[in-house]
């Protein structure tokens, strides 16, 4: 069973290859292949989960991928433990739901087969990522996930905004990946291996430690900042909604964005060995969470609200991990995957019906699409952390993980309040009240069953998946993911009550503002227009990047190109021109002096000869005269 677990990513890989090479003209076969592959992976994942949970031993299988001696020895392989099993279930579940849902959502798209090929590629990469037993293979999968998201975000690449978003996602996450690479280089240099076991042993035995480990850990975290959209690299995620909505659910709710969380969770030993790095992680997490939640308060695009909600919830998980809350972070990762993908798919269902993203043009849709509305409401309650839905249990663990750090506790509760508020603002504006756009409302309809059934399935999971964390179960969720060192905050009834209260008050405020209309939101917006605009413009991050990074970089590149053409090549051409000039000068010198000298001698000789010639007259009188004259001169000189 376990020893063939490497087959799990192979199924979707084969599906992708077959679709690309053979069946891309046949839509039905392509979709069927892809869904079959992910179904097998889904079943396999559950089988593995039960095997692992029943027999909590870490299983490893590896082979030498490259062995160049000590300077580079990279075995790659897979490892299966509770965390991996949990991730496999999350990934395959959401991937399966999304692929079924897409049958309806993508119906009629001309590149339907290609869509399924890309989804299979994505699933393959993500499954490899969670199965890897070493940082190297994880990085490989990590990059392939990035490629798949690039292709899927820019799937409708005819649209300028879609191809922009794909590029932005790829490059922004790759900026984080630079940190990942440097972290890997440092770790390998420090301990000569990249397998999880080897690295963690090196940390525990102190081979890796001190400032070196801290630096490495912070660089490594750079990868997570990029992939999990943490400040300041969160900017790609909201734009990524240009892709097809189901894609967006699979990438941004359940899988790709949690890869960063998974990275931190998986290498928590490293962060726990480097306290400064861990606190950096925690601070980045809570800042991200606060910032994104505050932006979510005012957005009017249904997808954008959910996008910032995702960023905010990821910040939660990251913060919990930074504070050592392994169970809290991974537990929330799982529950969030279910309720957030439900929210995304629900939003997709709404957009499918009304053909707009703008909640100002919606309203009253509950009457038209009951299933979507109810499942959306369940997810909203779950994310708000309302008892007894899944979010309640995992959010409680997150709050519990902040105990001992009062600043974090307060901020975490503040985020919880804002989350509850903006989710219910979204719900009320979309599904309740009177329709604000009559025309769109008239045409709205419930989505087909192939789309609503996945919603129902995910709604069930959004309710029950948190029950693993029930306080009267021994060790709760930690027994699922964390066998060797029980690391579980006790269930805290007081905290649970407080966080429940906070969530309810957030819902209450939204109820008053957007359902009962007792408080006018526009008045608040105008009275605090500075803050409102800052939030609406997402703290001007995009603008700042444009002005501070992208434009200057581009100008700098142009400058270097100018330098290359005019200075470096100018020198080369100058040297060439100098050669030519020198040649001309030499020719001139040759012609003037050397030739001149030669010609001069010739001229002299000729001139001399011409002069002397006059002596040779052939006349005896002349000769006699010369002889006589010579004798006279000799006689005088005597």
């Amino acid at each position: 069973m376990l020893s063939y677990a490497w087959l799990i990513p192979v199924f979707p890989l084969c599906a992708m290859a077959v679709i690309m090479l053979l069946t891309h003209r046949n839509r039905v076969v392509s979709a069927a292949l892809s869904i079959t592959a992910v179904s097998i992976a889904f079943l396999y994942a559950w089988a593995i989960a039960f095997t692992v949970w029943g027999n909590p031993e870490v299983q490893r299988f590896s082979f030498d991928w490259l062995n160049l001696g000590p300077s580079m020895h990279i075995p790659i392989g897979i490892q299966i433990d509770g965390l991996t099993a949990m991730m496999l279930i999350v990934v395959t579940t959401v991937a399966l739901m999304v692929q079924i849902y897409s049958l309806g959502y993508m119906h009629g798209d001309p590149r339907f087969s290609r869509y399924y090929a890309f989804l299979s590629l994505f699933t393959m990469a993500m499954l490899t990522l969670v199965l890897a037993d070493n940082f190297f293979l994880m990085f490989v999968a990590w990059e392939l996930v990035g490629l798949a998201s690039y292709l899927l975000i820019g799937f409708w690449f005819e649209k300028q905004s879609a191809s922009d978003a794909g590029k932005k996602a790829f490059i922004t996450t790759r900026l984080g990946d630079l940190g990942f690479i440097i972290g890997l280089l440092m770790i390998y240099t420090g301990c000569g291996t990249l397998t999880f076991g080897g690295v963690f042993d090196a940390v525990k035995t102190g081979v890796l430690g001190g400032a070196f480990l801290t630096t490495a850990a912070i660089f490594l975290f750079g990868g997570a900042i990029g992939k999990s959209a943490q400040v300041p690299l969160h900017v790609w995620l909201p734009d990524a909604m240009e892709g097809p909505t189901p894609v967006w659910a699979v990438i941004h709710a359940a899988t790709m964005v949690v890869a960063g969380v998974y990275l931190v969770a998986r290498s928590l030993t490293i962060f726990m060995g480097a306290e400064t790095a861990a606190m950096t992680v925690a601070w980045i997490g809570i800042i991200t969470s606060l910032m994104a939640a505050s932006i979510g308060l005012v957005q009017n695009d249904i997808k954008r609200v959910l996008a910032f909600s995702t960023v905010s919830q990821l910040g939660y998980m990251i913060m919990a991990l930074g504070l050592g809350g392994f169970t809290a972070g991974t537990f929330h990762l799982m529950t969030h995957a279910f309720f957030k993908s439900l929210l995304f798919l629900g939003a997709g269902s709404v957009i499918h019906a009304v053909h707009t993203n703008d909640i100002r043009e919606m309203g009253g849709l509950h009457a038209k699409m009951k299933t979507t509305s109810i499942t959306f409401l369940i997810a909203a309650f779950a994310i708000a952390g309302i008892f007894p839905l899944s979010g309640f249990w995992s959010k409680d663990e997150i709050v519990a993980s902040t105990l001992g750090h009062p600043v974090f506790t307060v901020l975490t509760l503040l985020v919880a309040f804002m989350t509850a508020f903006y989710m219910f603002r979204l719900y009320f504006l979309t599904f309740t009240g009177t329709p604000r756009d009559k025309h769109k409302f008239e045409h709205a309809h419930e989505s087909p069953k192939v789309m609503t059934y996945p919603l129902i399935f995910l709604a069930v999971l959004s309710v029950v998946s948190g029950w693993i964390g029930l306080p009267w179960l021994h060790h709760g969720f930690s027994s699922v993911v964390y066998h060797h060192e029980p690391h579980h905050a006790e269930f805290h009834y007081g905290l649970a009550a407080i966080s429940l209260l906070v969530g309810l008050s957030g819902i209450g405020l939204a109820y008053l503002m957007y359902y009962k209309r007792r408080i006018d939101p526009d008045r608040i917006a105008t009275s605090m227009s500075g803050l409102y605009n800052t939030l609406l413009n997402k703290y001007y991050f995009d603008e700042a990047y444009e002005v501070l990074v992208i434009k200057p970089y581009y100008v700098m590149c142009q400058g270097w190109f100018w330098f290359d053409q005019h200075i470096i090549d100018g020198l080369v051409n100058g040297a060439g021109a100098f050669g030519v000039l020198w040649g001309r000068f030499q020719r001139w010198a040759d012609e003037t002096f050397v030739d001149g000298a030669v010609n001069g001698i010739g001229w002299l000789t000729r001139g001399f000869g011409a002069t002397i010639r006059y002596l040779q007259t052939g006349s005896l009188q002349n000769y006699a005269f010369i002889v006589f004259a010579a004798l006279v001169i000799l006689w005088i000189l005597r």
Partner: protein
Amino acid sequence: MSGLLSWMIFLPLIGAIVALFMPKDNHRLIRGVAFVATLLPLILTVVLLAQYDPSTAEFQFVEKAAWIPGLNVNYHLGADGIAVPMLALTTLLSFLAALVSFNITKRVKEYFAFFLLLETGMLGVFASLDFFLFYVFWEVMLVPMYFLIGIWGGPRKEYAAIKFFLYTLFGSIFMLVAVLALYFTSTPHSLSIIEHIQRAPQMTRGFQLFAFVFFFIAFAIKIPTLPFHTWLPDAHVEAPTAVSVLLAGVLLKMGTYGLLRISFPMFPEATRFFAWPMAILGVAGIIYGAMVCMAQTDLKKLVAYSSVSHMGYCLVGMAAVGSVAGISGCMFQMVSHGLITGALFTLVGVIYDRAHTREINAFGGMWIKVPVYSGIMILFVLGSLGLPGLSGFVSEFMVFLGAFPYFKITVAIGVVGVLLTAAYFLRMIQKMFLGPVAGHTAELTEINFREIVAVTPLAILMIALGIYPALLSNLIQPTIENLVRLIGAGA
């Protein structure tokens, strides 16, 4: 099979001579000759790979005969783990480039005669173990290249051809001086590369530094490293497609090959002395090349400048002189860059043939109009930007892993190149392939069978090396371990 290397080297020359006897207007016949004359060395390469014993660093397939006994010049050939991949790359790319050249219609006979002579020169450089022979092949290569660029090139062909010729010749003079110095300082006077490597421990530090620098100038121009690179964009852009393929795929590797074959084992002390400057030059090339790429509007020039950037990885890798991973990474990058850039130039040629322009801004939405071509192009671009699963990633990772312990900050800066490369390539993809159909895209027709055949082997090798690098590393490892030992042995 005795004389395997000689056959490999001189079959193209025989082909060139045969081609000269063919009637000038029978293009099919001449192409047929070129096809056979490049295919046979490729087949011999398979034999070579099959017979090569990868467990030793010794030279194999050695051929040695006295040539000019008075000067102690020998006809001395041999191949080891550094030479074999280069020979294989050369025969493969020559064969594929010959296929690519089938659309040449101007003075076909001369074209293929020069082309085949060029292959002889290239193969000769990679197999020579005698300085005299090495130098002869090195110069033999220049002449056909000069004519290939100068006659069949683009608008600025004369300028590019002369610049290429003179620049390389300028470097060769330094090499010649160093070779003469080696010759006259040895007793008995010798031109054998192997003998000079053996006497490396007796060379003084000063002599090593001098000789290293002189050889380095010759090789640095070929690679090319900053700041000797400006002949490259001109030559690559003006050369006909197939010649660009060989220039980028094979000729650039002669610089790095020369360093690994001659400079490193022969002047170990100087090599260690200059390791750090080489790493700096390499990183500067990576970053600088990538930034200049960002400013390009001509697709072929972009690919040309990307070579400057990518050859920087080679230099960084080999600068890690004590690391098997670093130098192996350099070898990997040489092979990988040859495969990928060879294909990229071929693919640039494909659209130039159809649209008669290479301006990036003149295209848009090509993925809609020519999906197969676009898919192939994007695959190679992904290879070039170092996507895992393709060969470029393996070589970059090996280079970084090998060099990082020696030059931490320098390599960390070099890692940024990974991002900058993605930036300029994705920008190009977005402008040309994504978005709505625009500009000259409408004139394009889908890539044809011959062109697909020309890039398919490259794609297969790129993926194979990316997934299972041991295919190549097994071949080169003993040689590189030996090289690392030699470099360390001079202390």
